[in-house]
């Protein structure tokens, strides 16, 4: 069948962006292939691994299973927007300090989910962390250091992103 395309006007990381996309293109296709935002990773591409997690209107969503044409006027935030200029965000610094990345492929997805979690529950405990991060898979760390990193950013530890 013929390819159906349309011009999409998106808001990505606070900027208006215009792209020509197929009806069937996912948000991940557009972010990576057209906008050059390769921080969001293509892992399983089936919604299992969470490597492609972005935020849409502040809520974590799987970019690999979201049609770009369905995003509309909602605000898309990718991992590239986490850092403040040249400085890594406290969350990213915590990730490095705790050794929560090994190969690093899952890290962007974890960061985007964690960023939301710490806004919603700045005092979250480890059980709440596990539940919130249950859609993000890591094949290197065994998760302990990831939870350590999140814990460093809870309000009680003084590095909560929402209060930066």
């Amino acid at each position, binding site marked *: *069948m*013929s*390819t*159906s395309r349309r011009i999409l006007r998106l808001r990505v990381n606070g900027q208006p962006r215009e792209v020509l996309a*197929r*009806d*069937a*293109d*996912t948000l991940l*296709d557009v972010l990576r292939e057209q906008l050059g935002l390769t921080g969001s990773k293509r892992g399983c*591409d*089936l*919604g*299992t691994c*969470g490597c492609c*997690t972005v935020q849409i209107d502040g*809520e*974590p*969503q*799987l970019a690999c*299973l*979201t*049609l770009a*044409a*369905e995003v509309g006027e909602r605000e898309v935030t990718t991992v590239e927007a986490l850092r403040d200029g040249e400085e890594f965000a406290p969350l990213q610094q915590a990730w490095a300090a705790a050794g929560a990345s090994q190969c690093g492929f899952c890290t962007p997805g974890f960061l985007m*989910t964690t960023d939301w979690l710490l806004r919603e529950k700045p005092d979250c405990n480890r059980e709440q962390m596990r*539940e*919130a991060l*249950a*859609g*993000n898979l890591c094949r290197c760390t065994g998760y302990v250091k990831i939870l350590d990193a999140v814990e460093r950013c809870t309000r009680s530890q003084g590095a909560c992103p929402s209060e930066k």
Partner: protein
Amino acid sequence: MQVPDFILRQPATLQEAITAAQEASRPPDGSHAPSAPEQGYDWLGGGTDLLCNYKWRINQRPVVIALRGVAELQSDVAGSLAAGRTLWQLENDAEIQRRYPALASTAALVASPLIRRSATLGGNLHLDTRCWHFNQTAEWRAAHRSCLKAEADQCRVLPDPGDVCVAAYCGDLAPVLIAYGAVARLHGPDGERRVPLAEYFAGDGIRRFAERRRAELMVAVEMPADAEDWRVNYRKLRLRQTFDFPEGGVAVGLQWESGNPGVIAAARIATTAYASVPLLHPEVVELLQGQLLDQDLADRAGALLESLVQPMKNTSMSPSYRRKMARVLCRRALLDCSPHSSS
């Protein structure tokens, strides 16, 4: 993986959605001859099932009709749950937690939190059936030529099933809603009709609905007025504590005799993942009715259910284990309904 081409329709109203479906199911010559209900289009809820299948080149359609923008599917009306509500909303809605606690807790058992943010009630009820030989890449299937539900003319699960597909229905919400006595509200070109969910599913792994009509879609699930009087519980068997589809699932709904809590006045038992549709088990209901719920009764009901289910060799766990676990799931679900249980 790129999603194969399709034309995306984005209706804003129910009527626009139905019109889009009618146009998509018309034959290319423009005649109005009826075609198979799902020949030309797919409805798109959250996309967490459909887009995965499309990426694997499974049964893709030329037109996809997205339902996210259809206003009538997004908000509940009294006594009913809109089909477009996400599972995330269902599990976190204080009203649903209070009135239908088993529905909220079961929604939280589906897949992962990230999937649940997109997946919808209507989408979960219409989850496509699953099988080792179906949910595979196009290359894998081409090498094996082994799935009736995809491109092949033979089945690897049963040596000679005729044209019957034994793929398993793996939705978690359907058995729970059946245990509550819920009713599907459908809307199509001929107007609206209501079908009890217990009668909605019928057929095999390919033809899964009793009376699916062209261009018809589920608008809402109506909860009966007495739903809150039922004690409902659901137990799920799966490999991991996140993401996995059920390998077996048992939902139990019980009503106590008036003034006699613990004595079963009425019961509903439904299972998922054991067949191509959610199954009702009147034999177990008959055993339970009028009886005092205790360990012995729960054991006997579980044993009876184990003898009734017939899982196929088409998921991760062995059929014999899944069948044995039906007994355990049923027993635990029943005992958790007990007036003395804290759950």
